[in-house]
């Protein structure tokens, strides 16, 4: 899962060497509220799911939880 998300994030940020952990926050990645919507759309397409995002979704770990719950 983390691997797939890393690959989506690398494409999203245009940075092939990007490394993230579950603790990495969107803020650290420079992903604002608008970017996070685009990111969620890419993830939904990749996994063919619908994700519930909330204000509590702030880290990659939170994102993985939302994907698991979908």
């Amino acid at each position, binding site marked *: 899962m983390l691997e797939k998300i890393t690959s989506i994030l690398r494409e999203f940020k245009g940075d092939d060497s990007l490394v993230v952990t579950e603790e990495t926050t969107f803020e650290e990645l*420079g992903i*604002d*509220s*608008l970017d*996070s*919507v685009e990111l*969620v759309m890419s993830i939904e397409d990749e996994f063919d799911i*619908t994700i519930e995002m909330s*204000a509590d979704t702030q880290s990659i770990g939170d994102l993985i939880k939302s994907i698991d719950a979908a």
Partner: protein
Amino acid sequence: MTTTELCNLLEIEYPVLQGGMAWIADAPLAAAVSNAGGLGLIAAGVSSAEYVSEQIKEARRLTDKPFGVNIMLMSRNAEAIAELVAKEKVAVVTTGAGSPSPYIKLWIDAGIKVIPVVASTGLAKMAQRWGATAVIAEGSESGGHIGETSTMALVPQVCDAISLPVIAAGGIADGRGIAAALMLGAAGVQVGTRFLVAHECSVHQNYKDKIIKAKDIDTVATGKRLGHPIRSLKTPFSRELYSKEYDSNISNQELEALGKGALKLAAEEGDLQQGLFMAGQIAGLIKEEQSAQAIIETLMSEAQATLSRAASWAN
């Protein structure tokens, strides 16, 4: 006359929204546009909730027609203003410069029609999922905060992506623009720059003069490095901002600080040196100051004429 589903939805006569221009779109302009049959908007910008509250009261004194409030989500007052508009039950809320997800339920529950400004199909789809009433698909021709995609490319893609009414914005200042937007699948338009020169617009005369004088190539987008580009008229100050963006000796914080307050200086004081005169690429088309009513009447009669002629192409 040209009416669309949007007119019924928003209880307006013409499918024309006035852009929520920060420091510029106040109660007198919003009320004038609404009285003329469009939908006027009060821009909250970075102002306080108290300011917005006074403007809502003033607009209600000036018109009994529906009007809206535009909330700039990057403002630190966004949350307080979000709660204020819910309490006041304004007819329409439009949002810009961010994701409105934390507030949409609050507004819908208050009976408010929620219309986020979107610059991508992704945000448009998400807005539909959140329960938005419509979206404003705003192309990069617009003034102020802009996205990457042009109106011509964005509007049909947003129309295909969602089932909500789509309002086209960016590059529209006459009836041809309205007709074109409808042809792209939009149910209405949002017009900003042209209303800047409305008689009822309280912006400084220097600002209006600059719009009237502007040519097609007279705008520039700055702030791309900071992740939130802004389109404004070329001035010594905007050129300076533009060049400093490519100067690696200047930090992002310094760059951010440089632009702070510059729109207010332009709007309120007409400061030709340090002001940032936000305007869309269509400024070059705008040639005269008119009342809001004359602007809307002109726009709609031109649109009607253009649309009538359009049928001849199909034969």
